[in-house]
């Protein structure tokens, strides 16, 4: 049902266009988001071991754990995941390109991106690479254009974090409505290609409308 008018006004004051419907399917909350929430919410923080230092209220409009300016952190799932085809597993062929696609329509034009980090999980389709040789990840935007980043990946077990150069995709322009990327993970020594199992984008933005100190600095 349509929320009552005061609730709509409160939603708008909180910078939300309408009341979200809630999680359409059971989606686990990423551990990183829980961690950021627990460290970020002063009332939660006060309930924790940091109770003794009331002055420890986080800096406004800054995400300390990630070291960037921002007051909105979004964990955006890859919406192309179900369509990902199985990869060839022989070592003789070059490793195929794997595409990921992120819906950024929830990001408001006034928001400034300060961090865009890919969270990737790969699994080896066959015997792993020789110890110590590792892999090389390259990321580019779908379609023509330069490679955005090249990064060494030592092992496939832990999640791979790859920070996109924010200036590369949001230079003085509003954040795009969607972001399609092409990933290639090449083994440095002959080995079967790895398959992308899970991908998400951690996006930190700053909404200047919600960033206004009230109290005057003490004289």
């Amino acid at each position: 049902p349509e929320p009552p008018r005061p609730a709509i006004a409160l939603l708008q004051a909180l910078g939300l266009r309408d009341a979200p419907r809630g999680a359409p399917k059971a989606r686990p909350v990423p551990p990183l988001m829980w961690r950021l929430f627990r460290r970020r919410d002063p009332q939660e923080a006060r309930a924790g071991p940091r109770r003794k230092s009331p002055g420890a209220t986080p800096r406004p409009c800054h995400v300390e754990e990630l070291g960037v300016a921002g007051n909105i952190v979004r964990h955006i799932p890859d919406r192309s995941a179900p369509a990902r085809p199985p990869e060839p597993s022989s070592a003789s062929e070059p490793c195929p390109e794997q595409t990921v696609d992120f819906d950024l329509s929830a990001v408001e034009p006034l928001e400034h991106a300060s961090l865009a980090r890919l969270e990737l999980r790969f699994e080896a389709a066959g015997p792993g690479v020789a110890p110590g040789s590792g892999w090389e990840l390259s990321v580019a935007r779908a379609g023509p254009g330069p490679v955005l980043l090249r990064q060494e990946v030592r092992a496939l077990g832990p999640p791979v974090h790859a920070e996109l150069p924010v200036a590369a995709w949001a230079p003085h322009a509003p954040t795009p409505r969607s972001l399609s990327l092409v990933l290639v993970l090449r083994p440095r020594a002959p080995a079967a290609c790895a398959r992308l199992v899970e991908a998400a984008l951690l996006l930190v933005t700053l909404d200047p409308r919600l960033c206004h100190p009230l109290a005057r600095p003490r004289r």
Partner: protein
Amino acid sequence: EAEPTAGGVPGGACRARRLYVSFREVGWHRWVIAPRGFLANYCQGHCALPAALPGPGAPPALNHAVLRALMHAAVPGNGGLPCCVPARLSPISVLFFDNSDNVVLRHYEDMVVDECGCR
């Protein structure tokens, strides 16, 4: 849930009163992951002398508020008393699902009244 005041008339001197905002009451519990609600509090109470003067550890009173309280004590009804308003606020964070299936953490400044003062 709000701290009851006796007979609807604000009791005592200006100070923060307990007000708990429950997201379930507002009907947001389906999309707000955490917290379940938060202590927003509110300010209420008299700002006549000596309440208009700061207690120990409270923020410094505005000279103007003290002046108004003095004027009111001398000539009641002329211009009224200072108001009891938030003097120090702190932020909250909300973790929720948005309509694009994202998990979002938003930080909102000035959502909780920690201290009240006469202004």
